[in-house]
């Protein structure tokens, strides 16, 4: 039994113990916090098979973690007493127990989120650290999610921890005046964690979805706290609900991707869609219109499969506003697609050609889509270009499928 129980508990509890420990010991002891948490689970692995699973396994783990922390502190205190007796501050360190109550776990995780997503740390490292420390993913899982090697992730995490120590980042909530800016960094990182799971090329479907679920859990931490329960946080959560509602529908029988227009909408998760709508409503307060509001608005319209004038009118206007506050090639291409639905393909093709994105394979996929009804030859040409520009196998396969479809269409 413990064979399944311990990995399950590891996933659920490891990150809580590390976070609380690290807040207790200070960010400079992040490595030690990880060691103590890992040793705690090692003790369970050693003891449970012989002595049996304790009646309350979580309480057992917490008790062991507390003991190990106390030992660590005693050791380092003895050390500092002998080596640095002149440091009076250290003499007075009172030994407090590790507080593993629900409330303190939540508070610590929230504060840790702000510490790890500190502007002084490269965003790539923020993502890695968050996945490791706040979500408890293993190095190998993170490497699989990013389609890279364990060495790369290890190096990245090592450097990130160094940065944290150098920058003397405090594990605390930002001041009220700094909140807006700091929250923006945190949201960017969580959104990237979600996207890593949602769009990653990795075949590890389980890891990908759990990246998304963990990102959503981190947003819920923010929603549960009054100072961080801001409109844009609700908007981002709504956006994630809408995206996540399509998990089942976008997977083909052979694990291949099914594009939105071809999805069987009966597989969309209506519960998540209505949750998304609920959070989007809650986001509609205040005067700030964030890009998450606009993206969630677009995702909301995409939960309606039926093409109506109202739908595409609204999507076009939302993309206009999104591009005004935050340009991205993807948004520019999607706007042009919406434009074709509202004003017709001829106008859309004209606008597409102004985008100067001809080295982007999605640009050629878009043009092929626009040309497919009026000039099949040109559509195929664009798909051929797209196929040479596409970097991943699954993208190339999707494009080849489209070419076949176009060629065989009457």
């Amino acid at each position: 039994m413990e064979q399944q129980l311990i990995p399950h508990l590891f996933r659920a509890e490891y990150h809580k113990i590390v976070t609380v420990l690290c807040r207790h010991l200070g960010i400079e002891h992040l490595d030690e916090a990880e060691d103590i948490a890992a040793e705690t689970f090692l003790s369970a692995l050693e003891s449970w098979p012989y002595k049996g699973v304790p009646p309350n396994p979580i309480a057992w783990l917490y008790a062991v973690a507390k003991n190990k922390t106390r030992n660590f502190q005693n050791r380092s205190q003895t050390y500092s007493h002998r080596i640095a007796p002149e440091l009076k501050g250290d003499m007075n360190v009172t030994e407090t127990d590790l507080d593993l109550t629900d409330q303190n776990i939540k508070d610590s995780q929230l504060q840790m989120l702000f510490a790890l997503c500190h502007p002084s740390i490269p965003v790539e490292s923020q993502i890695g650290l968050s996945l490791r420390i706040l979500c408890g993913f293993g190095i190998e899982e993170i490497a699989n999610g990013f389609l890279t090697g364990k060495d790369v992730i290890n190096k990245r995490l090592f450097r990130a921890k160094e940065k944290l120590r150098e920058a003397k980042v405090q594990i605390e909530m930002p001041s009220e005046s700094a909140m807006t800016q700091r929250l923006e960094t945190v949201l960017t990182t969580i959104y990237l964690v979600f996207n890593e799971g949602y769009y990653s090329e990795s075949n590890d479907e389980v890891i990908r979805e759990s990246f998304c679920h963990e990102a959503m859990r981190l947003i819920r931490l923010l929603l549960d706290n009054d100072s961080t329960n801001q409109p844009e946080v609700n908007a981002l959560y709504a956006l994630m609900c809408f995206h996540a509602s399509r998990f089942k529908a976008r997977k083909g029988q052979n694990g291949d991707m099914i594009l939105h227009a071809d999805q069987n909408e009966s597989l969309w998760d209506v519960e998540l869609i209505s949750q998304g709508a609920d959070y989007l409503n809650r986001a509609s307060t205040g005067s700030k219109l964030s890009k998450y509001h606009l993206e969630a608005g677009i995702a909301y319209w995409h939960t309606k499969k039926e093409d109506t004038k109202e739908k595409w009118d609204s999507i076009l206007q939302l993309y206009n506003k999104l591009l005004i506050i935050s340009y991205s090639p993807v948004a520019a291409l999607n706007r042009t697609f919406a434009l074709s639905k509202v004003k017709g393909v001829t106008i859309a093709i004209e606008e597409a050609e102004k985008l100067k994105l001809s080295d982007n394979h999605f640009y050629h996929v878009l043009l092929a889509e626009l040309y497919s009804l009026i000039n099949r030859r040109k559509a195929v040409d664009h798909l051929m270009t797209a196929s040479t520009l596409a970097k991943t196998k699954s993208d190339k396969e999707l494009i080849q499928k489209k070419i076949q479809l176009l060629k065989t269409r009457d």
Partner: protein
Amino acid sequence: MEEYALIMRHEDGKKVASPEQIQEWMKQTMDWIGGIAAQDKFVSGTGLPFDDSRVVHHNKLVTNGPFGDIKETIGGLIVVKAKSVDEAVEFAKGCPVLHGDGNTVEVRRIAKDDGIH
């Protein structure tokens, strides 16, 4: 890359439009600006509503709105990035204000804050 202001001028600011008309213009304007933003050439924009506007004259006389003696009124302006004035002019040609007879869009390069221009 230079920055240019595209200043939208209405020939007659006294014309009153219906809410539906205003909404349609808003949409057209947003489509125009969205097209520029999709090329990553949009910098900023300001709408200038006619209500609550005043004109201060040289003798410090204050009159209501930009109407009366002044024939043309400014409806708003946007700032775009462009390699040349010609590219900025191409953006200006798409402005829906130009649907109105007598309306204009003035294209002006923005001075750089380098002490020379």
